[in-house]
């Protein structure tokens, strides 16, 4: 095989791309991955990971501000040093970025540095990036291959997504930020408006609020985190407002007026009233869109729909030999969905027996605001919409020993079962550490347990997880500690 011929080339080294590459290598396929900017993609350079680092600083600051309630005395005050908080976040990201480079080397996956374009089925040309990289970047890995023509039997597009921009309110990197700028402030602003209350918007709102910023969230829908269960969204909103976050729902920013060092957002509510909020920065977090441009997809006839590549359950596009996974292949745009989609795609290519298409009904979602929100499966409204006869169980953090001991007694867990079959249809949580708890229900759903098996499962005491069992018991009128 020529040096530039591969079994599989993956375009994009985000969590979907690099995990797919490793799985391909495990399956004995000669694999290369193309990256134009940063190994690990948005997720670990400008998304999931660095924001978790920022939020950890915020969490420790929150705890310190409540030290007294734990019987602890802090002499003087604890304040955030913006530069150091950001530096830590970049450091965390850099460590993982280097880790992906190591994983590629370990699995003998060639890294091709540059921007790829599909020229014909089975061939790409790698050239210079069509857009400048977001700075600062971690150093590019050593030993990569460069610009040129490469061939592969299978080409997997995993180019991810980028922030969506609203016309007239395009991010400028100074007054109007996307997550890129919001992740590396030079100084802490005094005030801020966050447009959009999805996971990205609400996490930044929560972070900046913890840092003492006066934050206003503007959401188009009736609830914050509108994909979540109505009850959980309302619960989270109350908790966030208690922390001093201002939230305006069923409202949109219609236009902005920029001054030298401030920006005025015109916020129109459902009743048609327009108010003006003048603030230091506006964060635009109104969703992300697939990176489908400059790939040569159109010329090859790869079908796209609303900014995403159309695929079947195994990542196949409308053109044989070309596949797509992750954000670029459509929602939900989540790293773990991309990873799983990639594994399914490559295993199907390699002919691994027992591969089944992605089940979109069992993809968990986590939001790391304070308090955290996590969920999997159907919301109560969706279940009813599907005509399901359901049983709902709830349990509150304020009746759980561990939660009280942690000083985290504000939260709730909600489960939804099919009344006839006992199938666990959905689980929804808000409160401390729920992003770690949710996986218990994800495993349960994936193994198709019913309420009976969950009730027969021993949950350790004292843990937050006991609330999961209690919520199940509650759905069947058997709750113990409530």
């Amino acid at each position, binding site marked *: 095989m020529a040096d530039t011929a591969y079994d599989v080339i993956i375009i994009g080294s985000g969590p979907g791309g690099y995990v797919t590459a490793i799985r391909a290598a495990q399956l004995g396929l000669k694999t290369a991955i193309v990256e134009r900017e940063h190994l690990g993609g948005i997720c670990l350079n400008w998304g999931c990971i660095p924001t978790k680092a920022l939020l950890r600083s915020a969490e420790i600051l929150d705890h310190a501000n409540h030290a007294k309630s734990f019987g602890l005395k802090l002499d003087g005050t604890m304040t955030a040093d913006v530069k150091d908080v950001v530096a830590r976040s970049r450091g965390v990201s850099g460590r993982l970025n280097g880790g992906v480079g190591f994983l590629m080397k370990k699995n003998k996956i060639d890294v091709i540095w540059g921007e790829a374009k599909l020229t014909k089925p089975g061939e790409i040309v790698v050239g210079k990036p069509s857009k400048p990289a977001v700075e600062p970047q971690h150093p590019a890995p050593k030993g990569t291959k460069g610009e040129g023509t490469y061939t592969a039997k299978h080409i997997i597009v995993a180019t991810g997504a980028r922030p969506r921009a609203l016309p007239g309110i395009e991010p400028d990197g100074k007054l109007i930020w996307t997550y890129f700028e919001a992740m590396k402030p030079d100084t802490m602003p005094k005030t801020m408006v966050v447009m959009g209350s999805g996971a990205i918007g609400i996490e930044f709102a929560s972070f900046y609020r913890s840092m003492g910023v006066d934050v206003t969230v503007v959401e188009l829908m009736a609830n914050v985190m509108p994909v979540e269960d109505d009850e959980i969204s309302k619960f989270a909103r109350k908790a966030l407002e208690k922390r001093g976050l201002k939230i305006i729902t069923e409202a949109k920013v219609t236009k902005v007026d920029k001054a030298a060092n401030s920006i005025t957002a015109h916020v129109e509510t459902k009743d048609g009233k327009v108010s003006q909020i003048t603030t230091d920065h506006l964060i635009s977090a109104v969703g992300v869109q697939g990176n489908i441009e400059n790939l040569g997809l159109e010329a090859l006839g790869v079908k796209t729909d609303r900014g995403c590549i159309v695929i079947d359950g195994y990542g196949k596009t409308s053109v044989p030999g070309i596949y797509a996974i992750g954000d670029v292949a459509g929602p939900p745009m989540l790293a773990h969905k991309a990873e799983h989609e990639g594994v399914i795609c490559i295993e199907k290519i390699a002919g691994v027996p*027992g591969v*089944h298409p992605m089940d979109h009904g069992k993809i968990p979602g986590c939001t790391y605001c304070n308090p955290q929100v996590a969920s999997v499966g159907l919301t109560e409204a969706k279940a009813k919409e599907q005509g399901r006869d359901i049983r709902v169980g709830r349990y509150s953090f304020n009746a759980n020993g561990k939660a009280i001991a942690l000083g985290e007694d504000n939260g709730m867990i909600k489960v939804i079962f099919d009344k*006839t*079959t*006992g*199938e666990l249809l959905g689980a929804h949580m808000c409160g401390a550490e729920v992003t770690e708890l949710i996986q218990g229900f994800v495993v349960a759903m994936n*193994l*198709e*347990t*019913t309420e*009976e*098996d969950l009730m027969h499962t021993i949950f350790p005491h004292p843990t937050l997880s006991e609330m999961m069992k209690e919520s199940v018991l509650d759905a069947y009128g058997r709750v113990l500690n409530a």
Partner: protein
Amino acid sequence: MPINITMPALSPTMEEGNLAKWMVKEGDTVSAGDVIAEIETDKATMEVEAVDEGTVGKIVIPEGTEGVKVNELIAVLLEDGEDASALESSGNGTGAVAGNAPDKAPAVPDSAPVIEVGAKAAGDPMPAPSTADGSRIFSSPLARRLAQQNGLDLAQLSGSGPHGRIIKRDIEAAIAAGTGKAAAAPAAAPAAAAPAPAPAAGPSAEQVLKLFEDGSYELEPHDGMRKTIAKRLTESKQTIPHFYVSVDCELDALLALRAQLNGAAPTDKDGKPAYKLSVNDMTIKALALALRDVPDANVSWTDDAMVKHKHADVGVAVSIPGGLITPIVRQAEMKPLSVISNEMKDMGRRAKERKLKPEEYQGGTTAVSNMGMMGVKDFSAVVNPPHATILAVGAGEKRPVVKDDALAVAMVMTVTLSTDHRCVDGALGAELLAAFKGYIENPMSMLV
């Protein structure tokens, strides 16, 4: 402390057996290794040996009792120095029965100290289902409940989850396709309790007997072997798509070689030859070698994978009073004819005495059924799973054959190969049979 003797499991799949005969009586002294009883299982009669020494204090299950569950108490042994009164005092839950029910009929006392095998807590609403032979069916809890609610028998479904686990989508597919219905589908009963594909699908005993006049017949209850034959062969014909291939083999060369080999057999001091090969022995060897040459036919079917065997283990149907059994010549392709011949003699003799061990007749990768000695010209046999093939061998007889465009007379036998078409297709069966014919007609090749 009295020692409980329970019904032993004489094979991994044995669930119950008939207590055919007691070799000891109450009061007898036994030591470890003594044969104390004979147990009849589905296929064989086996001896039960005492593990401990002592005096037989009480025989709980009288001989002739059928369907004694494995681990059921069958007798109580008294240790040295104990007398019958110890039976009364041994009320620790495991020995109580012997004293409690001294004269009760053979049936199992309610409180029998049965080790909890197969005993299910009555309150367990969702037992893990199992197949007819007791092996576990892997399925998700949701799939089990959906199967129960929809009257499906999990044993009839195949799973698409990891390692063949039956999951929700398999149930939904079965509902959509209208397959997998439990035979009697009471929605309330767990699917696992639904009858497995049973030979009883035909007319009931009552319906049959109604057709004959009272007194015009005698009823002879089935023994374990008869039930097993009925069950297995019904299962085979119902689930295995049979396919048949026949071929004629000329035997003259084989008979000549056989005479030569037998004539050359060394004799011991009594003048007894070390071996005496039969045509059947050579047939076994020829089939084993043919399977070695055509390994794709040496397989077993499972729903998930083809089981490709590394050796040809040839079962040989042996007719015995009351039924038949197939002792197995293991790795027959590796064994000299003399070894095959002597093994067959030994196993054939013990088969007739129903003294074969389970490992001697369970498994195998193919089988030979020979009715040549009864003058049968040709017939087709029923595949005996897990085998994928069975060779039905007819009689060798002089027949007119065409040789060099002229009529001639040759010894010819007709063999018919039955195959499980799920794993051995027609052409593959033909290939196997051609290889077999090659060995039979060029028998010297079996010796190298």
